[in-house]
């Protein structure tokens, strides 16, 4: 049985080789319908990709239909490359997969003409070719998704890094403006960077501003309390600022105890308190001058 498969595939390779030009032309015409994006990719580039695909397919199909086999390595690599480029250019998954699937019609036409008088051999070869092309198409889609996931993961990591800046407001006063939802992983990063900054700058007061935190549930409150407690253990006071009315209501309804933590409505209130605690005071000079004049 295995030998017949090999024979059939060898004939697939020979069919492709014999009718390369007509298959290629028909394939390109097939793709020029809904799935070709002339705005994203040049005609000549696509033509090059198609030609390369056909050559690699002809070479690999001689060894069997197992796409994971070593003979298919160059073909797989090429599809991976195509998927990655198409993710960056903004193709949809459908458009990317159709690159492989749209070869079916021209290839089947060629097979039909080659096996004109033997319907059994034709059906068998069509089946094996369908299987082969399907698995190649699925592989392309998988590669497409993988490239996408990579992009998402990298962006997530970037966001994690970017979203936890610790800023020094005054000598001995730090602020940590939080933006976005707090989950366990982010809180860990926030906590660590705040505590490190406290040690580095020798700050006695840290203000955690939650103006940019959309919702505070029990988990988020727990994380905030942990951060405050850890800072206290190191000898720094924490003030939570930017508590919106909605969040204040939620906190009370959830029965979260924030009594041990100083909370302020705005960052400026918190900053005023921090200055007072550190022994600084402000004098507004321009007002006094006006009164003197």
């Amino acid at each position, binding site marked *: 049985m295995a030998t017949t498969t090999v024979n059939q595939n060898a004939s697939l390779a020979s069919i492709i080789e014999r009718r390369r030009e007509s298959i290629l032309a028909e394939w390109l015409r097939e793709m020029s319908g809904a799935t070709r994006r002339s705005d994203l990719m040049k005609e000549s580039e696509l033509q090059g990709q198609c030609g390369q695909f056909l050559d690699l397919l002809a070479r690999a199909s001689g060894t069997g239909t197992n796409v994971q086999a070593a003979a298919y390595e160059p073909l797989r690599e090429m599809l991976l490359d195509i998927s990655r480029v198409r993710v960056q250019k903004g193709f949809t998954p459908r458009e990317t997969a159709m690159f492989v699937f749209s070869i079916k019609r021209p290839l089947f036409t060629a097979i039909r003409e080659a096996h004109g008088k033997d319907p059994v051999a034709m059906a068998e070869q069509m089946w094996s070719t369908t299987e082969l092309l399907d698995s190649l198409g699925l592989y392309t889609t998988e590669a497409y998704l993988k490239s996408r996931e990579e992009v998402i993961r990298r962006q997530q990591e970037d966001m994690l890094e970017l979203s936890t800046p610790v800023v020094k407001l005054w000598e001995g006063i730090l602020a940590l403006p939080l933006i976005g939802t707090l989950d366990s992983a982010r809180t860990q990063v926030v906590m660590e960077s705040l505590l490190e900054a406290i040690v580095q700058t020798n700050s006695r007061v840290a203000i955690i501003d939650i103006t940019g935190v959309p919702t505070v549930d029990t988990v988020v409150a727990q994380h905030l309390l942990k951060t405050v407690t*850890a*800072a206290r*253990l*190191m000898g720094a006071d924490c003030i939570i600022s930017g508590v919106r009315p909605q969040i204040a209501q939620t906190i009370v309804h959830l029965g979260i105890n924030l009594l041990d933590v100083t909370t302020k409505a705005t960052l400026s209130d918190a900053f005023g308190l921090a200055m007072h605690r550190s022994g600084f005071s402000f004098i507004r000079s321009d007002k006094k001058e006006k009164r003197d004049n």
Partner: protein
Amino acid sequence: MERIPILRMGEYLLVTIQVDMHDRLAMTLQDDLTNRISETGAKGVLIDISSLEIVDSFIGRMLGNIASMSRVLDADTVVVGMRPAVAITLVELGMSLTGVRTALNVDAGMDLLRNSLDARKDALYGSRIQ
């Protein structure tokens, strides 16, 4: 046997933990410190743990205990220089060390002790002097 030195500085006692704490060492420190407080009549204890890198729940509880015992013996306790990693560990273990006062460094800790001693003296003698 290994011991952690307790230094006397006027009315205060200074403990600097420079080695990794193990349970027996912690118990010895607790004994020594309470003895020294009652011997010297110290009014404040400063424990510097800035070199302490590893902490477990036992050491955490011991720090809390020492603070409570000093309180009973009429001395304030300040723990200074806790590292971020240690602080996070203690919080994750659920030990917030309530009742223990903390400061960033020895300087800040001594300020804290002096201020609280002054406040105690004021409360005790202030009205009589006036």
